């Protein structure tokens, strides 16, 4: 086995993993607080990517900068989604919750299809073709930037939850909804904010990967699925778990492509999922409930 190739795969996997982490943190936050699995997670990312794309094409704003615009917009989308849709089914049986979120996903996909059509779009940004060569190893600049910002945003989310008042309210509502209500926390508002923050995370991730992958209305489900695997691996509701899980899956897929046949790389992440479900169903960083 070629050593350069192996190092290349490790670095590539690590960089992709950072973005996976950010996507999964959004999903995990929403689940941790509301116990709702956001099956429209990938679709929210897709919408964020379209916004980023049009900001780039029409106003020439680089995706990295457009995060400043995209994040609040997607926060608002998430906030409203929680307020008007999710909040109504928060106590409903899980099946109903899943159906609603799947419904939202279908609506978003078809909305994108209706407005922008099925064409693949690709943003040729300043960095989309640049790479750093270190000996025989290539480091992709867009990926490096995406990784760096994803890490910064993830740390930001951790700090937000740990230090700010709203963050503390979110954690309180997540720990004990009734208790939070008793001490005067407006739980509905806190829920909407959490959903907004979770959506903004995946929105930022979308803006970051726009220079890397072709955009079309159908890319949502595969990202929802990947982040779902990561969240199960890391532990449902654990943000640290989602973060480390993202890196693990990124590296595992990349190494899988080198060590096994590359079309088996998705098999690697699903095998990890099965092993985790069998031997540690609470995930790496999850705690056993009840």
């Amino acid at each position, binding site marked *: 086995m*070629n050593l*350069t*190739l192996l190092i*290349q*795969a490790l670095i*590539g*996997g690590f960089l*992709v993993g950072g973005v996976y982490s950010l996507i999964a943190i959004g999903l995990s936050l929403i689940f941790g607080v509301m116990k709702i699995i956001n099956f429209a997670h990938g679709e929210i990312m897709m919408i964020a990517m379209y916004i980023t794309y049009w900001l780039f094409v029409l106003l020439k704003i680089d995706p990295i900068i457009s995060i400043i615009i995209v994040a609040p917009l997607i926060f608002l989308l998430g906030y409203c989604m929680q307020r008007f849709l999710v909040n109504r089914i928060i106590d409903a049986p899980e099946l109903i919750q899943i159906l609603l979120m799947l419904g939202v996903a279908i609506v978003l996909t078809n909305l994108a*299809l209706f407005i922008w*059509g*099925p*064409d*693949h*779009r*690709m943003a*040729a940004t300043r960095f*989309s*073709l*640049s*790479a750093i*060569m270190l000996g025989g190893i*290539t480091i*992709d600049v867009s*990926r490096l930037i995406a990784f760096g910002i994803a890490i910064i945003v993830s740390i930001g989310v951790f700090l937000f939850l740990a230090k700010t008042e709203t963050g503390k309210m979110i954690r309180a509502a997540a720990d004990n909804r009734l208790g939070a209500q008793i001490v005067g926390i407006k739980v509905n508002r806190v829920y909407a904010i959490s959903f907004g923050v979770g959506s903004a995370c995946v929105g930022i991730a979308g803006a970051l*990967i726009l220079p*890397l*992958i*072709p955009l*079309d209305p*159908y890319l949502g489900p*595969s*990202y929802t699925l*990947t982040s779902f695997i990561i969240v199960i691996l890391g532990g449902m509701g654990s943000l640290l778990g989602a973060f480390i899980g993202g890196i693990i899956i990124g590296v595992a*897929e*990349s190494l899988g*492509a*080198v060590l096994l*046949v*590359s*079309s088996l*790389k*998705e098999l690697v992440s699903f095998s990890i999922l099965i092993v985790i479900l069998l031997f540690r169903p609470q995930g790496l960083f999850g705690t056993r409930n009840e």
Partner: protein
Amino acid sequence: MEKIRKKHSFLNVKEKSFLIVAGTILLGMALVITGFPGITIAAGPKVIKIGSIQPATGMIAEIGQACRRGNLLAVEDINARGGIKSMGGAKLELLLGDSEGKPPIGRSEAERLIKNGSVCLVGAFMSSVTMAIATLAEQRGVPFVIDIAAADPITQQGYKHVFRNFTKSSVFGRCYADYIKDIIAHSKVPIKRAVLMNIDDLFGTVTAKFTLKALKDKNVPIDIVAHITFPHAAKDISTEVAKAKAAKPDILIPIVRIASSRVLLKELYKQKVKLLGIVAPGCPGFYEPEFFKDMRKLANFIMDSPPWINPKSSMFKEVNARYQKKFNKGPMDTNSAYAYEGVMIIADALERAKSTEPDKIVAALRKTNIKEHITLGGPIVFDKNGDNPNAITGMLQNLNGRTRLVLPREFAEVDYVFPTPNLWER
């Protein structure tokens, strides 16, 4: 208050009779517009319905829409020329079906279009979907003209009602091997090592298999030093490209689809993979107008060998001009052109059959011999399997932001450039 409500809640006699008359007129108009389904058939068809099933939404909707545009333009052209003359100028009507790229949906859409009176079907781009529709068409006894679908087995089932104008996968491979031989013979630098990279769906694996087989059967002096398969919807293929780079190939043989072509090319650029050329054995992704828009200079010099339009055909020039004007899209390519021919073949058969009876249409289709058409290869005829033995592929090369036909030489627009400059030097 009471009075007002009374006034509003009752219609007087005059108003009532007016409503009845108006209603009857409207109903009558509706019946005229919908064409009195039962009555027209008895009086001999004024409108002949053709069912078009394309993947108009779903993963490959871009292509599906192009196919649908081709079908629609052909119908419009035939109607503008006076419809089917042997049947009193009967007009064609295209019933639109959408397979979403999924075989069961394609089948149920075909079923629906047959129920709605299609006398003939055309479609369906994806081989898996086409196979499902072919089986249904055979069961129902409805002629099915395949405009696009390459998998060989579709026409090897002994079906009587299925005809295919498109090039078969095995022919793709054979033409490709010939073109590669031509390139090797004319290249000033030796070409010895090739890496084959293909997506892992049915299309990718089958094309890879036929390509490898043809290169071997035709004794093309080239070593496949690595064969890399990667997932169709891969989000990241940097590792796969690193693997290809490690194999130090002279040429890359990619088998991709629209999205993966972009990802692959960018990755080759970023990792600075040295290649004499990228020569694809007939896959989508490298010649659509959007490809140039997205990849700009990187799109240049890439070679691909799909079935293609005949740039020397005067009929093509004329049809293409109208296509671009009507749909405001780039020039016609394989998808829209073969879709156009699909309807053209049906219209030609109807003209000679002088009937919408399935048996007569099938008999006429068997005797098809269309000399003037818009794609590569000789006249459109059908062999005993229903295949067009004259359907071939052409070698294309992107030069100066345009896709040009470079092989076979009898149809070629320009000569090809080989070896090609490195991606980062374009």
